[in-house]
């Protein structure tokens, strides 16, 4: 479970003007983004054309995290703020804690895909406040404030502010291109009602509900979606099981022989041997990732059409990731050069 600093929720509850919420919603954008590199790295290390079920689970979660990042950005625009995506501090340091976490949090790495990674990191990131025990899983007591509570507090505070919260919104600058996300998930936030719907969507897609592991689209919430990889079977309905669900569907096997051998938390391009193929490949990847953040920044700062450029960059990233992983790690025989998610503003 993401244990977040209770002070953040206190700040939400103390906000009297929409401007008081800008920094907090910016943090939410940063948090929604922060999981993407770690999920992407795991996804990219699956060799193309192999490990399809696992790849599809990872990809589907990544796509929803991107949606959540977009929703949080739209919300900030609706509240009159300006999302800041193109700056070095926007990318967390890996391994390191996710944004908003407090002491007792855990470090999120950049690693090749493995069952252990999914179980100890990904499921921990997505753990709901009260996981539904399916096949013997037990819920732990709630000790800290959670990201779900953060969003809930935000929702409540916007209700309290009412119309006032949106009077400086630049609604036309929101990105609502339904080519990429359906209209019932990505829509213009123009008032408290639409804001509340958007916030609830983020929480439910991530955590499911207290009563069902499924999200509103009848898909397993992220936590349970990942758990399928750990359990090795798909989540299916089972009326005989106490929770109504069981990991008893089609097998999901992670084929370890078709995962690139990337060492955890790869060095940034600047630390690789100067002029080496590894450095070149790593730099092109990091530069492409930075370009993607720039395109997203432009998307949410007055050029919503720039999402098309961002889409191109996402697909290019997939191709360049394969180039990086095909390049031998100069320091470790048999290993791949690693994917480095660092801010690389120039190809220099």
């Amino acid at each position, binding site marked *: 479970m993401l244990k977040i600093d209770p002070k953040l929720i206190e700040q939400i509850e103390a906000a009297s003007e929409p401007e008081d919420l800008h920094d907090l919603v910016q943090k939410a954008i940063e948090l929604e983004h922060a999981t993407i590199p770690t999920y992407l790295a795991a996804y990219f290390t699956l060799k*193309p*054309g192999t490990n399809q079920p696992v790849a599809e689970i990872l990809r589907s979660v990544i796509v929803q995290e991107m949606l959540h990042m977009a929703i949080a950005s739209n919300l900030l625009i609706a509240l009159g703020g300006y999302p800041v995506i193109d700056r070095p501090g926007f990318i967390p340091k890996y391994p390191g804690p996710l944004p908003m976490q407090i002491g007792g949090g855990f470090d999120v790495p950049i690693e090749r895909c493995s069952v252990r990674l999914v179980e100890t990191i990904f499921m921990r990131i997505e753990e709901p406040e009260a996981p539904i025990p399916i096949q013997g899983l037990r819920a732990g007591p709630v000790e800290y404030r959670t990201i779900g509570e953060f969003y809930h507090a935000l929702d409540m505070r916007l209700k309290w502010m009412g119309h006032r919260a949106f009077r400086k919104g630049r609604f036309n600058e929101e990105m609502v*291109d*339904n*080519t*990429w996300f*359906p*209209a019932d998930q990505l829509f213009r936030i123009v008032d408290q009602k639409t804001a509340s719907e958007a916030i609830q969507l983020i929480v439910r897609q991530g955590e499911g509900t207290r009563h069902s592991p499924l999200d509103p689209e009848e898909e397993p919430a992220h936590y349970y979606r990942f758990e399928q990889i750990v359990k090795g079977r798909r989540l299916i309905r089972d009326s005989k099981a106490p929770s109504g669900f069981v990991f008893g569907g089609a097998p999901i096997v992670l084929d370890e022989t078709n995962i690139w051998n990337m060492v955890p938390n790869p060095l940034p391009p600047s630390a690789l041997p100067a*002029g080496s*193929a590894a450095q*070149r490949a790593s*730099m*092109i990847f990091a530069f*492409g990732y930075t*370009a993607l953040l*720039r*395109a997203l920044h*432009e998307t949410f700062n007055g050029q919503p059409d*720039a999402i*098309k*450029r961002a*889409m*191109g*960059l996402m*697909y*290019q990233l*997939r*191709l360049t990731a*394969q180039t990086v992983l095909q390049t031998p790690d100069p320091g470790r025989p048999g290993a791949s050069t690693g994917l480095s998610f660092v801010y690389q*503003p*120039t*190809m*220099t």
Partner: protein
Amino acid sequence: MSYLNLPRINFAGLFEADVNTVNNDVRNYDVEVFEPRFQTLQKVEPDSHVEYNGWWNPNGSNRFSLIDCAVTGVVGPAGEEVVGSAWTLQAQLDRTAAKIVDLDPQFQMASGLWGLKIALMVGDERLVEGSFVPASFRDLFFGRLNDPAGQPVQGSPGASARFTGGLEQLRWTPKAHASPSLAALRASADRNNGRLSLSLVTYGYAKTGAKGALTGTVIGSLGSWLEGEPLTFAPGRRFSISASSPNAPFSSASNLGFMTALVTDAGRRLSVDFGVSLPLQQSADGGIHPQDLGPLTIAVAKAGDTVSSGPSGLSVTPGVTEGQVLTPGLYEVVGVVSDYAQEAWLSRTGGVIDLAVPEAARALIADHPLLILLNATGGGQQVAIRESFGGLWARADNFIQRVDSAPTGWVSSTVDIRAMRWGLPWSDAPLTFSIPPVSGQGGTGDDNEVKPPQTDIPDNNVPLATVSLPNQAVSGADGAVSLTYWVANPGNPRGYIDGQVYQFAYAPAVAGGSPTPLFEVIATHVRDAFVPPKTPSWATDIEPVLVQYGNLYPIMSRGLFSLSDFNSVAANARLLHLAFTLPPTDPNYMPATRDLSAGKLRMIVDWLSSYLPEGAEHGYGAIPPLPIGQSLPPPKAVAAAPAAAVKPSITPAAFEAVGPGSDGKSAAVRGFLRNATRNVGE
């Protein structure tokens, strides 16, 4: 005037070109005979036979990147501006990589850059950004580079070329104001359509090498562009090799390539561009610098050229010729350069030097030929290369063309050509045009090939009946010729690949004139007329088109999704719809080769539309309308048969420079040279 004018910002660094090579061989377009091995690397047998397959980089993405490009010199109107080491040139800060592609597998002599966006930066901050108007390289010079042992590097690794184009949609940041040179460039752009001129020279490209895989060196300059000027080359004074140079068609006897100079400030300043001309030398550490030819003397000949007009047209007799040894009384010196044979010189200057013209030379410079002189072995100065005879030359600007033909009637396209005389507009210049026979290009045509694709290499420039090209034209007072040609549906003459490539030869019609460089042709891909079906189906309409792209670009199916599989295409309909509806200037445009007609694009988009999710963007986006044919206008009256255009000879040295290499460009150029040799013989 172009990047040769001041102020000028020079830069140097590396470029990476991840070119795709399955499409290096036109026969790989034939889906009927395509084999999976054509998507794999070529194999060189121990007996040096080659199984070409997918040539040397079948996984290429056509990505073009700039790497470690530093600003190396800023020349302002008042001399050098010191900007420190923090200025760099970057590309694609917020978009996918630019693409480098050929017009067609049967015309690989002018690869084009698409979707390139440049940013001049100081540290991590932008000074100015702009979009490069797509341009193809020209001045392709094989045999320019020697290896560390002094032997010519054969094939593409030994070749060099120049891309010149406009830089538009400029965005200046307040930081740019602090530099007088940038302020002057901005003022120039504000007066001239918001445009600057960017030129990139590439050399030392290699599959593997000291600089990295698929990497070469790039140097270049950013300068002003003036309203009315061509985009893809610098107007000015053109140096030409002798038609009978032993290194023809690429370079003079001293191995200098075609080059350009510019006289400004009422004859007081001469800027000479050696950027793609001086022969190069690779050192043991991989660095590349100009070969040391001894002091280079830039001079003006005292003897003028004689241009006369007779019943059979213009003819020119030069006062001085290439290779001639001159005594000091025969020329006036403008300047001498001795420190050029270093990598740092080339980087710092972009190969361009600016000289103050002394009084004596200024008296001649307006209408006497410029010379580059080298110390002659027996004393005196030998002409290493000279300005074109009579100062006469002509060059097409938009020389790479893509034209959709119509189902009935004719469609026109226009090429802008500039004729110049001593660097000024050449009015009433007679130009001649022709369509020579072309065959055997774009495959290997080599004896060492084994297991080739089981299909023929199509001929080009046929049918002739569907092309209407004037055989001559005369420039206006501004030296400009708008050459309008008309095409009808070629009717799929190549069978397995769309449309036809036509090469139009052009040249000033001047007897005894300087030769037009071999690759200076107008190349146009005329696409087959195509009417999209009302309801396209996968099997009959879509699959045949997409399977060909799937065959030629294996990176798509290996890294993203298969283009030959119905389910994966349908599942990715929204991404494909976006890519197929972008303007060709967008780096994400599909197909990357930019060779699909509007009709076929519309058909694909129609089909994709039924697989788009609810709420997705529909429509044809930037796809042009279907062409509407017209009736062919009557030909203009022809005055007199023009003098034959002068072409450089095709020497054994040219074949030697290209070598037997198995890269696509070399093979294509070998085909081109063989073809040109045949045509000379006819």
